[in-house]
């Protein structure tokens, strides 16, 4: 099996052709990771269905395509990006815009918020906050099986940097609007680093949008450090067109007694793969991982979760749901790993899916790997339809069948959405999901592209 | 039968029992009353051999033996029965199998042959009648899916099966309606003999309308602060626990 696939060869070539250009605009520290990551990528390659973690997702249709590759920011487009308005009314947030993987603000690459919080460009932070940056960058995004992580490390040069100092509570969330727009098919990779120090409280919203109808492929890596006793929430809202592929890899490292939650809401997208790695790296940590997707047409949505209980007395809970319409396909791959010394672990996982048509297909693979005995772990997975008894009950109260189905589906989805703590966003999500279920939202909100 | 002398015990380093002395003679019914958190259930747990309670001082002698040295199952085979406040559910283990194993362990301890299946079933039937327990319960898994009242009645049924010398009923009356309460009390009264004894732990006096105690103790803050005849229970019911608390505090001051 020495022969690398043609597709992998293509990306190896891409690296070799552009590495000088990429290194030229990046900090020395980021550059120092590139060669070893490239080595690792050339060993692992682009994941195929033979890779157990990608068993149900075929990446070839997006990776086997000739994209225009943007390794340099295009300043002229930045103005348009800054004009982008988020349509979540009443959401009061510190906004950041990322265009095609680059931080565009022309004046200031890093912004200081109250209490010593910094948000801004990753590449800039690597130089200005070298001490903090070097303590965390590249420490959490590790994989022995997934080449895409290493492909990102080898080539990404910018993204979002957020720093919350010790003891600081940031009352407003940070909202990252992740835009992809180009008049050419484009492949881009970006890299985020979020550091929430000891005793801090902070949440971040990441919204993924496509603004033009070209074919896009994004491979993003986000590293998060959550210090002792800190509270951190990440909410990702995905709204991309059917010709876009988004791969997100989020690595959340938690220290002692910290509490985190992650919530991936996928409203629209061609091929989406969200990998979330939770590392419970200190005693008493709690981790919650949620996900909801609504898929139709030929969309394919894959959620992958790895819950790594490395220390005793940690708690985790996973809840992932999917509604599949038309000929859409979905996958869920959730793993709970309880390491030998992680006694006192409580770990739960639930995956429920509804198939609305005969052509939709769902594959799910929940896993438990338990090496400690004083644990309570369980998982449940279902693939089915709406509950007939419940449907009849609603109907018997005078609600027509269509409405009753909608209510049940909405209730099904709301179980995930209700875990969003930011109220205006939660309401907006409920609203969007309702519209989506009614079929009124055949394209993404605030998207100019008519796709599908 | 049971002599407790200056018993002190703690849970996770926190002192709960602070010097209890008590003697139960054959044929006696003792009631232990007291407000929540006074140490009633801890005392029951120590007597039954629950390990999370650490005995720090004092002695307990049962039929002349050092009870504290005995394993929980040996105490049971020697005739100590604990009616649990919260009976445990054991999925998949049928009551019949559970009780048969327990009864035969007791018999083995006494040097008797195990009961044959038919004798055992007959015994189950008789005892069920005695304590008026629904016979369906016996076919289910131990306490699994039982209501609160069913669980408590099941405890009394087990007591009837095992014929203990000293039965400790830990708040067996809590959560029971009046009918269930009567069934539980009748069970106790029917099982009472001149050679066996009961310690009835309760928060309320109402169980003692049905089970007449010889001695009533009031436990407060890990100590027995008052011991008297059955009239004490009635007094407590009328006045509540506050006057006891006051009395104790006054004594301390005096």
């Amino acid at each position, binding site marked *: 099996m020495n022969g690398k696939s043609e597709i992998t060869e293509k990306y190896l070539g891409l690296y070799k052709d552009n590495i000088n250009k990429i290194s030229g605009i990046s900090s020395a520290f980021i550059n120092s990771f590139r060669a070893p990551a490239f080595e690792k990528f050339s060993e692992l390659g682009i994941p195929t269905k033979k890779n*157990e973690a990608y068993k*149900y997702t075929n990446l070839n249709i997006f990776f086997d395509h000739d994209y225009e590759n943007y390794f340099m920011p295009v300043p002229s487009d930045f103005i348009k990006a800054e004009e982008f308005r988020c349509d979540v009314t009443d959401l009061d947030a510190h906004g950041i815009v990322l265009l095609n993987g680059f931080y565009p603000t022309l004046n200031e690459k890093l912004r200081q918020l109250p209490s010593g919080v910094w948000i801004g460009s990753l590449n800039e932070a690597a130089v200005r906050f070298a001490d903090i940056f070097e303590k965390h960058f590249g420490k959490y995004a590790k994989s022995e099986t997934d080449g895409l992580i290493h492909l990102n490390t080898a080539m990404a040069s910018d993204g979002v940097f957020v720093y919350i100092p010790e003891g600081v509570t940031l009352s407003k969330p940070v909202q990252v609007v992740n835009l992809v727009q180009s008049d050419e098919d484009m492949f881009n990779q970006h890299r985020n680093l979020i550091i929430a120090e000891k005793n801090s409280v902070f949440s971040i919203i990441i919204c993924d949008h496509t603004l033009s109808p070209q074919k896009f492929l994004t491979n993003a890596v986000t590293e998060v450090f959550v210090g002792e006793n800190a509270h951190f929430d990440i909410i990702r809202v995905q709204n991309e067109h059917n010709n876009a592929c988004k791969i997100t890899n989020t690595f959340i490292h938690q220290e002692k007694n910290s509490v985190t939650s992650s919530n991936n809401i996928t409203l629209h997208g061609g091929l989406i793969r969200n990998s979330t790695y939770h590392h419970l790296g200190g005693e008493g940590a709690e981790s919650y991982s949620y996900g909801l997707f609504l898929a139709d047409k030929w969309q394919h949505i894959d959620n992958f979760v790895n819950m790594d209980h490395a220390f005793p007395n940690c708690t985790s809970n996973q809840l992932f749901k999917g509604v599949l319409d038309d000929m859409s396909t979905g996958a869920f791959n959730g793993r709970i790993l309880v390491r*030998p010394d992680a*006694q006192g672990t409580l770990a739960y996982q639930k995956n429920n*899916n509804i*198939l*609305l*048509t*005969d052509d*939709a*297909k*769902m*594959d*799910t*693979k*929940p*896993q*438990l*790997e*338990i*090496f*400690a*005995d*004083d*644990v*309570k*772990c*369980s*998982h*449940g*997975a*279902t*693939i*089915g*339809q709406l509950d007939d008894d419940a449907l009849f009950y609603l109907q018997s109260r005078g609600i027509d069948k269509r409405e009753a189905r909608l209510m049940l589906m909405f209730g099904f989805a709301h179980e995930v959405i209700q875990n969003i703590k930011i109220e205006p966003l939660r309401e907006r999500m409920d609203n969007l999901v309702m519209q989506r279920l009614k079929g009124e939202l055949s394209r993404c909100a605030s998207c100019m592209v008519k796709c599908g | 039968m049971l002599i407790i002398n200056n018993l002190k015990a703690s849970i996770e380093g926190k002192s709960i029992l602070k010097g209890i002395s008590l003697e139960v003679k054959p044929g006696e019914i003792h009631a232990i009353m007291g407000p929540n958190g006074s140490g009633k259930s801890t005392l029951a747990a120590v007597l*039954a*051999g629950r*390990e999370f309670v650490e005995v720090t001082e004092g002695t307990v002698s049962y039929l002349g033996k050092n009870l504290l040295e005995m394993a*929980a*199952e*040996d*105490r*049971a*085979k020697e005739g100590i029965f604990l009616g649990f406040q919260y009976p*445990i559910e*054991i*999925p*998949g*283990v*049928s009551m019949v*199998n*559970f009780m048969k*194993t*327990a009864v035969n*362990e*007791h018999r083995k*301890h006494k040097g008797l042959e195990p009961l044959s299946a038919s004798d055992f079933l007959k015994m189950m039937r008789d005892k069920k009648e005695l304590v008026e327990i629904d016979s369906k319960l016996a076919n289910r*898994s131990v306490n699994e899916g039982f209501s609160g009242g069913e669980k408590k009645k099941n405890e009394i049924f*087990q007591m009837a099966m*095992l014929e203990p010398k000293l039965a400790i009923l830990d708040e067996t009356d809590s959560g029971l309606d009046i009918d269930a309460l009567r069934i539980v009390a009748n069970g106790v009264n029917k099982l009472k003999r001149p050679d066996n004894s009961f310690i009835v732990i309760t928060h309320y006096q109402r169980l003692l309308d049905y089970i007449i105690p010889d001695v009533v103790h009031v436990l407060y803050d890990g100590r027995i602060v008052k011991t008297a005849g059955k009239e004490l229970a009635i007094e407590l019911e009328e006045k509540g626990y506050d006057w006891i608390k006051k009395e104790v505090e006054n004594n301390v001051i005096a």
Partner: protein
Amino acid sequence: MEKDQDKILSDVTTGEYKYGFYSDIEMDRIPKGLSEEVVRIISAKKKEPEWLLDFRLKSYRHWLTMKMPTWANLKIAPINYQEIIFYAAPKERKNLNNVDDIDPELKKTFDKLGIPLEEQKHLAGVAVDAVIDSVSVKTTFKETLAEMGIIFCSFSDAVKEYPDLVKRYMGSVVPYTDNFFATLNSAVFSDGSFCYIPKGVRCPMELSTYFRINSANTGQFERTLLIADEESYVSYLEGCTAPSRDENQLHAAIVEIVAEKNAEVKYSTVQNWYPGDKEGKGGVFNFVTKRGMCKGENSKISWTQIETGSAITWKYPSCILRGDNSTGEFYSVAVTNNYQQADTGTKMTHIGKNTKSTIVSKGISAGHGQNSYRGLVKVLKNASNARNYSQCDSLLLGDKCGAHTFPYLEVDNQTAIVEHEATTSKIGEDQIFYCNQRGISTEDAIGLIVNGYAREVINKLPMEFAVEAQKLLQISLEGSVG
């Protein structure tokens, strides 16, 4: 109590394997090693027809192109196929029609295992095919069954006497290309049981095969083929043991079941191959391919397994639910103690309409044992109204063992309902204390609780086996709690 439990744990885990003895039987063995020549020798020894030799050779050649699978959650020491003896049989005596003609040593062996070969001594209602190393030595009640048209004999006899049936069904459920170990078996299989239940017949007794590995360095490669014709019913049992040895012994079997319209097959296994010693030395590698085809409408295949033995178990009794309204079931208890490893589960493939499957798996890990459930539920596009319910529980006794669950649910039909649930926990200390308080020792309490935990599965076994299984569980696990 903690200390007591440790003591009991060590007492129990050091308990001897009861069936570890070796019998000195006069054997006919071929030299060790595997080659095309060896395949030919096996076929010649068994005086096989040309078509079967061709099947073996075809399989062998295909096997040479294959690699051992590595996807299971198992650590397997490399197997040297040139060190294995692929054929060993007790020396043949003339007529085996009479029990008295059997080598007395052999008879003693089976008596010792509790499997008397004399019909009058045997439990009423169980017919036994006794297989030692590579061959079947005696099938009881053959004549009684024959009166009803039921064929129950050794696989070798079936090849001679019912070649058409064998040719029609062999490899129809597990093709010779299926997997590494099935292909190996197809090349070198020695003997096994064959069973055919004719149309409309309910087999009046339990049919059973008892497998015994006896010789050293010998692999066991039996093959069982069970055909239930329309409207028939059969309950089939299999049991197995092996001597205690320091080397690992390979057991790679195939079981194929075909259930025609309205037929029902119950297949039960109590697997107690030698598990190795407490340091993990020796023990049988149990790599088995078992699959049933619910071919006709309303057919039903039910697998029940109690897996307590073997150093390594790699086994996935499966059902292909082809007939409309057909049903597949899998009930399993797998125990891993000391250094045992198990990767076991099932595959339910829903093809027909209104097909139903149930999976109940109970894993118990103790010592350094590693226990994995691996299962696939696949609902194909046209399998409307498919139903599956899976429940996979793991019980951990001690903090050095592991319990793992790898379910795969693949659903391609809107009307399907597929549900999977799994839990992992340890024996509750309060449950044990509750039993203690009633005078039951910790050791017995664990026995009770484990048996209660496994009861749902044990209840599926025929009476005689249920008692045996319960005892086995008790022996392998009593008191092993941390």
